[in-house]
């Protein structure tokens, strides 16, 4: 009997999506463990890591920055450098960005930031929670997105106030040439707010080696067919986001 791949879902003080993320992993045949932020062992015993959504440390100072200073993030950094796959969802994405783990830099340089959402004229739009659409760009270039097709249009829930990706020097150019997710409408066409709820267009990025995904919308809230609201008029026999988790599972 083959061993189930084990995945750590890190529970920070203020996380609120860890159990549905664990449920998603169970559904996909993985063995999830909700791991507390102060666990002395860290993520070393696990095959992969997911940083779930929520409001770690009440988003004090800046979303994700307090959690990025925790000792467990050194453990996550080590696991990523060992080649283990990692996904940061929403607040998890903010934590990965503040930890310098979205660009595979050797010394965890902070090269990506998540700024406040903006509207069409640059005005702040605050917290946006809604069903939106995203599509993968250059999906074949990353092992985590390789099962997606460039024509896929994926419904998903977005739920954040600070989700506008900002880039350090040279990073945006790199991101545009590699796999990432962008917001679009139901026909796959980009647009202004509210089609793009963050004012930037990018919904998720992959690290340079493609084994770390930071995504602001919530795949775990779109993993089961009955999670999709009837108003979207989609009828799935299985969620299109299963492709992401199948690829993640294969990397474990």
């Amino acid at each position, binding site marked *: 009997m083959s061993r189930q791949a084990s995945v750590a879902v890190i529970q920070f003080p203020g996380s609120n999506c860890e159990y549905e993320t664990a449920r998603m992993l169970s559904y996909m045949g993985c063995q999830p463990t909700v791991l507390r932020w102060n666990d002395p062992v860290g993520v070393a015993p696990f095959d992969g890591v997911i940083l779930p959504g929520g409001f770690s440390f009440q988003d004090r100072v800046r979303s994700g920055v307090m959690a990025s200073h925790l000792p467990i993030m050194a453990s996550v950094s080590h696991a990523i450098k060992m080649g283990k796959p990692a996904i940061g969802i929403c607040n998890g994405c903010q934590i990965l960005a503040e930890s310098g783990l979205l660009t595979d830099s050797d010394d965890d340089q*902070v090269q990506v930031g998540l700024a406040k959402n903006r509207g069409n004229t640059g005005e702040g739009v605050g917290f946006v929670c809604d069903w939106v659409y995203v599509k993968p760009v250059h999906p074949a270039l990353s092992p985590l997105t390789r099962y997606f097709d460039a024509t896929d249009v994926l419904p998903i829930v977005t739920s954040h106030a600070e989700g506008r990706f900002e880039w350090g020097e040279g990073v945006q150019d790199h991101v545009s040439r590699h796999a990432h997710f962008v917001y679009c409408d139901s026909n796959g066409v980009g647009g202004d707010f509210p089609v793009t709820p963050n004012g930037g267009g990018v919904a998720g990025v992959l690290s340079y080696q493609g084994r770390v995904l930071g995504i602001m919308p919530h795949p775990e809230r779109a993993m089961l067919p009955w999670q999709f609201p009837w108003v979207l008029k989609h009828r799935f026999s299985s969620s299109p986001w299963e492709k992401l988790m199948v690829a993640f599972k294969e990397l474990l």
Partner: protein
Amino acid sequence: MTWVAYVGLKQSDLHALSAFEVIATQYPGMVVALRRFRTLRFDTTASRSQCELALGASFEWVNPNRSVFSLQEGPWVSSKGRQVVVHVSPKTPSVLTPPVRFKQLLPDVGPVLESVTWVFQVADHVDGDSVMSQMVTSTRRGVGLVCNPVFETATLIAVT
């Protein structure tokens, strides 16, 4: 004339407390206290008393039950001890929509820009440059805290 308002909390500021905890753990003995002020910058021809009236009446920005504000003069001026004052603002300006009451009292007010001012009360041997490089700007994981240099700018505005 450009006016700058520093809005602080009457009670404990949890953002500042958490930031202090992280910095004090990383750099023991360097920081004694940390305070944070939401900073509003705006242009108007109105007088100081009119600006104070408008700010005090705009409950959205200054809730008199929990906030206090000072205009122009930083609230750190009257404090004792060695202080390093750092201004953190987004590279793309954060423009606020003025509350109706504020706009009524200051009809010619221009855009209101939001930023944050941090006041580090430090030990005598700590200089402004080391605060900026070690505690302010997040360059790597675990280094710096209150400014993400990717989308924010930190400016050292005073060492007292």
